[in-house]
């Protein structure tokens, strides 16, 4: 008698598709996953319909890996549906975990975004002033577009989430370990982020090159300097968020001679990655004079976008009461 294999599902919401690639990047190890579990829903790769999921008994999927942030009513509905059908709902990738890059849209109102896209963008040609419209009745019945909500949310702001797999996109090692952990007998504590609970510097190949003290008169953007491939990037004035970012990716960006942008979010002891990164970066400024400090800070053109690149929707301020 063969025991039924556990069922797993993958789904995407507001995302770029990179997380789907990340699943494929698991490469031959995907076979371990396939051997251990049945994939019952994966719209990007396999032809399943929403109605197939609806027909499954509640809680029958062991784990759903959902990537992408939540912006539209459709995404919210699918998140709810998969929540019901799954034992573990896993926020997969930065967007689902923290809101991600799409979450930066929260700096603007819904109206201003539609305005830009349908009227103002230089590439927009819209002489008839067409806009996403009201419900339309035709021979198929009433057709509606999903509602484009006022804010981007992380998955746990919409439904209860059991685990988080961080990264933009999550690195194959983390993905494989996460999947196999959930299939194993001892699931981690609910709410865990399935990656090491320490900051990236731990595994950074340039850790030893970091000086004891850094004092900067200006911050640099990667295109502005010839980046030394061996030296700590912060010491070169680049805004590397590694010290404030969870480890687990094995410092892939630094390997590629680019600074960490913080996609894995903060380690567990930190409430707000952006605030902590800001605090640490400010401490490197080599001045005690307010106007000189401002001059040095002017070399960071978009601080909120820099420090909250992946985590704006999950930030404290975004969750302010009554907003």
């Amino acid at each position, binding site marked *: 008698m063969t025991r039924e294999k556990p069922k797993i599902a993958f789904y995407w919401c507001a995302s770029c598709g990179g997380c789907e690639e990340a699943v494929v990047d698991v490469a031959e190890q995907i076979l371990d996953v396939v051997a251990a579990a049945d994939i019952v829903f994966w719209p990007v790769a396999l032809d399943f319909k929403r109605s197939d999921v609806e027909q499954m008994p509640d809680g029958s999927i062991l784990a759903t890996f959902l990537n992408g942030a939540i912006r539209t009513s459709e995404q919210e509905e699918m998140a709810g549906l998969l929540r019901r059908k799954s034992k573990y709902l896993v926020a997969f990738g930065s967007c689902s975990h923290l809101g991600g890059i799409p979450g930066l849209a929260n700096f603007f109102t819904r*109206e201003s975004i539609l305005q*830009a896209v349908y009227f103002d963008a*230089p590439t927009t040609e819209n002489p008839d002033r067409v806009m*996403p*419209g*009201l419900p339309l009745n035709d021979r198929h019945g009433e057709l509606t577009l999903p509602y484009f909500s006022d804010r981007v949310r992380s998955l746990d702001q919409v439904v209860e989430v059991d685990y988080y797999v961080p990264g933009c996109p999550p690195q194959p090692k983390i993905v494989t370990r996460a999947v196999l952990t959930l299939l194993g007998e001892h699931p981690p504590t609910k709410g865990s982020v399935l990656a090491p609970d320490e900051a990236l510097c731990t595994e950074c190949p340039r850790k030893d090159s970091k000086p004891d003290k850094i004092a900067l008169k200006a911050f640099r953007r990667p295109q502005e300097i010839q980046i030394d491939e061996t030296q700590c990037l912060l010491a070169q004035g680049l805004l590397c968020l590694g010290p404030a970012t969870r480890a687990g990716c094995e410092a892939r960006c630094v390997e590629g001679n680019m600074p960490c942008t913080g996609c894995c979010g903060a380690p567990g002891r930190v409430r707000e990655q952006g605030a902590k990164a800001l*605090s640490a970066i400010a401490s490197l400024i080599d001045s005690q004079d307010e106007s000189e400090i401002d001059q040095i800070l002017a070399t960071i053109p978009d601080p909120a976008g820099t420090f909250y690149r992946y985590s704006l929707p999950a930030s404290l*301020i975004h969750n*302010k009461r009554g907003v």
Partner: protein
Amino acid sequence: MPNAIESVSGNGQVSTEVAEPRIVGFFCTWCTYLAADLAGTSRIKYAPNVRVIRVMCSGRIDPQFVLDAFAHGADGVLIGGCHPGDCHYQQGNYNCLRRARLLKRVLEQFGIEEERFRLEWISAAEGDRVRVVIDDMVEKLRKLGPLQLKRGPALVRGGSGEQVPQEVGV
């Protein structure tokens, strides 16, 4: 009165009540907290809107605390530390200053007006300055009204200005 909350009471009368700003203060022990104590012993009177949290040094104030305060309903945050050069711990106030200057820009991007986040150097001897600063901040925040988190108006510079109808996509 921009921040007036109008409500209709039981007898049908419209009453206008001004929402009082709530301010969280983070004061360093050696200068500003002492200055506030001095204001007390000198019986100086000032607005009751600030609730003070004592830290050993303004350098201890983590930007997370400021954001947490705004997230939990503060309309303003006031940081008080020793004057430059006077830090009880030599350098803490400079670290506070660097952080505050960066945080201020982030807060502005979050739609938090600059009047709502204030860093003031108040020495242990400046009891009256506690009054001046608090009264001034309270007055400014009364004018601003409750924290709204205004978001950026336009994504495209020099856009048409044509307004998107509210009901779109409903």
